[in-house]
């Protein structure tokens, strides 16, 4: 008797609860199990992008001499070095379904170890010195960035394209014997100005795991994440000025980008 009464009371309550929760897909949120709810409603505002960059780098220092000398190659060889960088983009203008446009600032760092010599450059058999000097470069740039993500937004192809153009600026300094190197009373540190432009393609990683992408957005505000490949030209030759060391390079770089 009691069992029947309980069943009669509980059945409608359970049914009502199930119907209520079933009707809740629009109330997006996130809990310890991840994001839930409608994808559209879960998406957070998007204003910027962050790029973590790594690529090979070999500054075109010898370009300054037009083939008459190659001090850079003599000391550093022709092997590329690694340059690590960070770029912050402000997506000032969002064109939904098309892309974004805005300014960006990037900075990188590379350190090159020189092979130095006991003998002058005129000696054909230069003896390598026991101690090396180093050349450190901190390239920076301020560019305008156009990102076109229409293809990724409207088709199954998860690719976006972008272009960057602006000015480049770099700091460099050479050290020897635990201090700044000096040659004929000239200190081995300086700055270089120039241009910077780049073309790249990004692979939208969200396409491979929508659920993980939703979780990242709901919990961290990361709208999209990309793997990118970029070719860039950094011409830091002082806009043609003769007293500037060309520390720029034309090279490939890759990395991960997050739109926030």
């Amino acid at each position, binding site marked *: 008797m009691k069992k029947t009464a309980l069943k009669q009371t509980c059945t409608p309550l359970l049914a009502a609860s199930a119907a209520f929760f079933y009707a809740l897909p629009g109330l997006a949120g996130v809990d310890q199990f991840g994001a839930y709810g409608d994808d559209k409603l879960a998406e957070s505002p998007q204003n910027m992008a962050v790029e973590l960059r790594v690529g090979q780098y070999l500054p075109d220092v010898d370009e300054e001499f037009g083939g008459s000398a190659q*001090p850079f190659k003599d000391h*550093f060889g022709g092997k590329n070095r690694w340059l690590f960088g960070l770029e912050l983009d402000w997506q000032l203008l969002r064109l939904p379904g098309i892309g974004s446009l805005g*300014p960006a600032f990037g900075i990188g760092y590379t350190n090159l170890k020189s092979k130095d010599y*006991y003998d002058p450059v005129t000696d054909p058999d230069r003896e390598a010195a026991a101690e090396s000097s180093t050349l450190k470069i901190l390239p920076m740039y301020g560019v305008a960035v156009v990102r076109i993500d229409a293809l990724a937004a409207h088709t199954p192809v998860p690719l976006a394209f972008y272009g960057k153009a602006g000015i480049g600026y770099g700091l460099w300094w050479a050290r020897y*014997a635990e201090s700044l190197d000096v040659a004929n009373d000239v200190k081995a540190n300086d700055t270089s100005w120039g241009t910077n432009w780049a073309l790249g393609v990004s692979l939208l990683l969200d396409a491979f795991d929508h659920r993980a992408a939703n979780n990242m957005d709901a919990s961290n505000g990361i709208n999209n994440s990309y793997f990118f490949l970029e070719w860039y030209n950094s011409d830091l*030759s002082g806009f043609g000025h003769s007293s500037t060391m060309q520390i720029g390079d034309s090279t490939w770089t890759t990395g991960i980008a997050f739109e926030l």
Partner: protein
Amino acid sequence: MTSLLPSSLRHLSLGLLLTVALCLSGETARAQSGLKPTIQRIDTTQITREQPLREANKLPYWVSRADCLADDVITFRIQVTTPNTDNFEVWAGPNDCSQTVQRQGDQASCWLVYSSGLTRSPADVPIHARDLAAQNTPVDGATGVAGTESDCNTQKHLTIGLYFMYINDSGQISSNVIQFSGTGVDLEGPPTPEITDVLPSDTRLIVNWNTTNATEFAGYRIYCEKVASTATSGSGLTLLDGAVVDAAALPDGSSTGANPLDAAALPIGDGGSSLDASNQTGDAGGSTSNGCGGTQLIEGQLPSSKLLCGEESAYTATTGYAKKLKNGQAYAIGITAVDNLGNESVLSNVECNSPREVYTFFEDYRQAGGGGGGGFCALARPNPRSPHDWSWLGLLALGACLKLRRINN
């Protein structure tokens, strides 16, 4: 007679006599009551030394070899309640010197480092570093025997305590005993490092060595001595192994003989070392050659601080630099290890080489006509006629972006 005095004066005289009598009786009573002197705990802020006090983490109240050689004196400011005329003594030892057996007899391990009357408080009690190092136990003399310079040249590492006490005529302790345990004697340097090679660099030499694995360690010191050399073209200098120093052979005309090194050419001078040439245990400065033609740096001896030309403080370091040397000049190089008290090991093996000019990237770059360099503030002016001047592109893009955003909103 007293009756002739006015009554007021009589009363005053009686009062004075009574006061004097009371005072005398009080002193006698106090002396007869046997009040023991009470020595107060040692206040470390009141300890002074003739030698500079080391930092707190470098055993400031210990005695190093340099302290001993300098005949340093550690002075304690002692506070005593009711001091008396018994003898005030300070005993040093590794064991409890308040025990009579540790101060007297064949088994005694403590030694007397101070003995004098102390009837006023506060009072300064000077303890001589050499007396601490000497370990002259009562077997050597019950009243204590002063340490000498020769006591500084023994190899010794000893943690000791100082015991402050009054001793009466019968040789018994007549006060409380205060122990000060923050001291010791360390006359030993760390193990001697071994130089593996000395390589030339620009106005300096790169010195590589094997680490000493010392348990107590503060750094390494590098010593340089100018030696004679003959120049050879191309590869630099050939050293005269074992040759007698020849003034004419020195390119800068340095004086030779007892002190062939030009001390003024060495930047560090004698500031770092605690030892002086006159205190060397060996026969430095004599006719012994160090294998590079020099006579000042001899393996196994203590070098003169005047020859110091480099230091390295990292425990794990195996490389250091002899700095601010002259290119083309040959130098004999030796190193020592130093502990926290400044005790140095004896000199390592002696190697020789000459600093050489090094052509770095920047030097070759400038020599080739490169225009870069001169400081971060030496900004280059852009050439207005340059065909590569595209800086306006960035500004244009930013302006367009702002405009479009305004239209969108």
